């Protein structure tokens, strides 16, 4: 559907757009962000410095960006998908050469006012490009092998670059969100069935190869897998993060130890307590009630987005919203699985809550795009 085809009457224009924004979604986002501020204050021992204040500034900027993006018509975003994807690739290449190293991996580019993490930008850019590609591609060609190879190339480029940093967590997220858009766009089941079958076969082979002459992984890599599968086997070494995080989670009980009373995080038993492991602090201090509330907020966000997506008749909007929702879902699902010992420790923050600039800004941009699609949806009688 092109600009000209929109019946101007049915699409909100001007400041009236604000009325058509998904306000329920905005309320949930603000709720999540404020929980994050509270926890950042708590892990700083009751101080707004150093984390909460910076996080608040970023959230304000993010909120502003979200409105600006939401006000911008969705077809403009569709049309700039390709340049944005190119830009993300260039940034990923840049970080490869002049990025700063943190936590043992090259992830950031210092832009002066912010340490930009290009892999975060890439997540959005990839989904945008994929949505635009399938919007452009005629429906009958979607499952043709040649037209399946093209999006695979789109996905592979950023995934390989991020893997190079190395950041396994983000590259898996990229891969999953890209493949999800392919699936949503209607690529035939057979492709996915084949890939899943091969992947399972490969993983099986990997484990079977252990201890044989054709061993596929190094011993240390196997030991990492062991640590994930049984963190208690090495509680002070490789399994330390998982063990301590499970202890913090478990010791919360129903209602937790109380705000700012968490001993595991307060006493530094927990690593990365203000970033990737902030969920454990919530769990310890606010208990099951706190964690289930956070999960409820996330589920609410996902439901709002799904609801919005399923009402889109416009293909780009539907794929974009579903793709970005999946990205968001993967964020918190992977983070929570990690701290609860369901997934290996990979560097994925808890969206909207963990301390971090790039992730916050990119997330708010994501919601801006979802809002833009929502606002600019043709409506019956307006």
């Amino acid at each position, binding site marked *: *559907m*092109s*600009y000209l085809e929109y019946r101007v009457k049915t699409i909100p224009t001007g400041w009236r757009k604000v009325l058509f924004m998904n306000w329920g979604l905005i309320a949930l986002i603000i709720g999540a962000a404020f929980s994050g501020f509270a926890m950042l204050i708590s892990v700083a021992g009751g101080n707004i410095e150093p984390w909460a204040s910076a996080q608040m500034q970023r959230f304000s900027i993010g909120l502003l960006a979200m409105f600006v993006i939401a006000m911008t018509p969705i077809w403009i975003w569709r049309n700039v998908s390709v340049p944005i994807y190119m830009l993300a690739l260039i940034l990923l290449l840049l970080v490869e050469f002049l990025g700063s190293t943190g936590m043992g991996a090259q992830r950031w580019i210092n832009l002066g006012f912010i340490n930009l993490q290009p892999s975060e930008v890439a997540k959005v850019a990839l989904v945008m490009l994929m949505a635009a590609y399938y*919007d*452009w591609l005629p*429906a009958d060609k979607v499952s043709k092998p040649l037209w399946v190879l093209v999006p695979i190339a789109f996905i592979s480029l950023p995934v390989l670059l991020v893997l190079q940093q190395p950041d396994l967590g983000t590259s898996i997220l990229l891969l999953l969100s890209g493949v*999800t858009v392919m*699936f*949503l*766009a*209607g690529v035939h089941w057979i492709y996915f069935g084949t890939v899943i079958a091969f992947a399972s076969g490969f993983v099986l082979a990997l484990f079977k190869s252990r201890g044989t002459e054709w061993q596929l992984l190094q011993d240390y890599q196997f030991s990492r897998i062991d640590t994930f599968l049984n963190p208690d086997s090495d509680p002070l070494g490789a399994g330390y993060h998982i063990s*301590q995080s*499970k*202890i*913090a*989670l*478990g*010791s*919360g*009980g*129903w209602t937790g130890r109380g705000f700012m009373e968490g*001993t*595991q995080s*307060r*006493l*530094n*038993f927990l690593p990365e307590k203000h970033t990737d492991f902030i969920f454990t602090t919530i*769990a*310890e201090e606010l*208990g*099951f009630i706190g*964690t*289930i509330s956070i*999960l409820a907020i*996330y*589920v609410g966000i*996902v*439901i709002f987005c*799904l609801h919005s*997506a*399923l009402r889109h*008749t416009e*293909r780009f909007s*539907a*794929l974009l919203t*579903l793709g970005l*929702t*999946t990205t968001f*879902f993967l964020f918190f*699902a992977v983070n*929570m*699985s990690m701290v*609860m010992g*369901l997934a290996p420790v990979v560097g994925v923050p808890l969206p909207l809550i963990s301390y971090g600039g790039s992730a916050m800004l990119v997330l708010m941009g994501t919601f801006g795009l979802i809002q833009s699609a929502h606002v600019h949806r043709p409506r019956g009688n307006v």
Partner: protein
Amino acid sequence: MWQKSNIVSYRHFRTARRGLLVGGLQLGFCGLLAWRMHHLQVEKAESFRLVADENRINLRLIPNQRGEIYDRNGIKLAGNEASYSITMVAEDAGDIDLILERLSKLINLSPEDIERSKAELEQSAKFLPVTIVDRLERDAIEKIAFNAPMLPGVNPEIAFSRTYPLGEIFAHVVGYVGPVSSRDLELRKDPDPLLRIPRFQIGKVGVERELETTLRGKAGTKRVEVNALGRVMREIERKEGSKGANLKLTLDTNLQAYVRARLGNESASVIVMDCNSGEILAICSSPAYDPNKFVRGISFDDYNTLRDDNRRPLASKTVQDAYPPGSTFKMVTILAALEAGIINHREKIRCNGHVEVSNRKFHCWKRDGHGNVDLVKSLRESCDVYYYELAQQVGIEKIAEVARILGLGKSFNIEMSAVTAGIVPDKLWKLNARSREWVVGDTVNSSIGQGYVLSSPLQLAVMIARIATGNEILPRLIKSINGVEADKAPSKLNLNTNNLNLIRKALFEVTNDKRGTAYHSRVLDKKSQIIGKSGTSQVRNISAIERTLGVLENKDLPWEQRDHALFVNYAPYHDPKIAVSVVVEHGGSGSTVAAPIARDITLQAIYRGTPPITAYPVEDRATIYNQQRDLNKLMPKTTKSSKVQA
């Protein structure tokens, strides 16, 4: 525009269908997350909370003060003295070298101290205090406090260390404390966690050791919260410990100090006992050592000097050494004969200076013999042959039985280290210990306290106290624990009172009859007359050749080969109060060496201080006067000032 898109309803349907599937999977996964949360946080909450508490809560011990030890009059024998030390916290100090250099200008710091401190500061965590130097004087601490701004991270600290104000006077009884050794820990089944505190001290010898748990009390504990690095964040709970119990001993400091001074450098032991209650008034082993040196950590040189001294200052001779009792054992033999009804006091035995038993000659100390000897004379003049003859009739079993009734041959339950049982030999004992049959010669030897018979000075004191009272006196060292006194009236001995009276009468003549062996150690004052028996026990065999050539005098022998001099006595004759036993190792004759010591000490005990010179026989008064004056100078002046209510 890329391409004209057309709205195809089936496409929208497919997107919606797959969208619903993906959305459904996502929500399903959220359900899994919620279940996992519930599992971890609600179902397993208990166990995780425990682990979290173990993580953060550390139990620390607060050392408590050790109980103090007092004499019967409340004079402090062992106390706790505040001692100052300085510690340094590396992270507060910053430049450690600079601060140490400044410190060394203020106080005496040896290069070793500095070296050790630096090493410790480097090894331990940055926030833990490390002791730089301890046992500082007050003014050194004041200097440091005054210069505190220049010395960041340096903190003065007070600790309590054990002191023995009277030094060596009570060394063997009270003992001393020292750092816990790995052997100490091994010996205990379930050691008090206090013992694992670095620099903690426990009793090593004497009362300090034997009543260790009573004196130690209970340590306080504090539960502290620590972070992942072990730094203490806050104190959660504090449980104060209880101070160890204060002990009051039965000892009398003035008497003990007198005894210690009177013995001088002799290798000797003395016990003064209240012969009615068994309370030990003085128990002194000489020479002694300064227990304070052990608390501070004695130097190798000092220790080696003590260890290699042939007068054995480290040994607690009063209870851990057993000597042949010599003639002091004759009371046992004669009592056995009387109890067995073999002899009465009028029967006489002829002494020719020796007697032949199974082809062996046994000599009396008097070469020419005592002539006809009856019971009183046998004790008074200490005739050996009388006992040789008597013992063969009585037999060793009866002698051993009476010896045990009088307290020999078993160790007493007294709060001192290594209390010996001595030996009261009988046929079974020899078979077990020596794997040989008992022969008559053994009985003959035993009858005069030679041969296998061994008894400690404490046992001899108990023996004479039992003879004096006819009661089963048991020695007591502890008057009260935390003010609680446990008194037990002694029971009657299973001995005929008439027989005991006969012996007492004979013993009276030993010291108060012109012919008595210890007549020159008599006391004129009726209220403090001493009644006792001397003993001279041989430590070497005298060969037949030596006997024909003339037995060597003690003064002509090397010290190690001289006889032990013994004397046991009680006083006064009627209504006995004090029992004394004196053993002077290699001192020579009991009547000339041990008896005068016993007399001086007995008088001192009865008069509770310096006795009047008129109590002594006229011929001794000049010597005694000088001796009293000399000894008074040696008595500790601080005994009165350190008197504290126990």
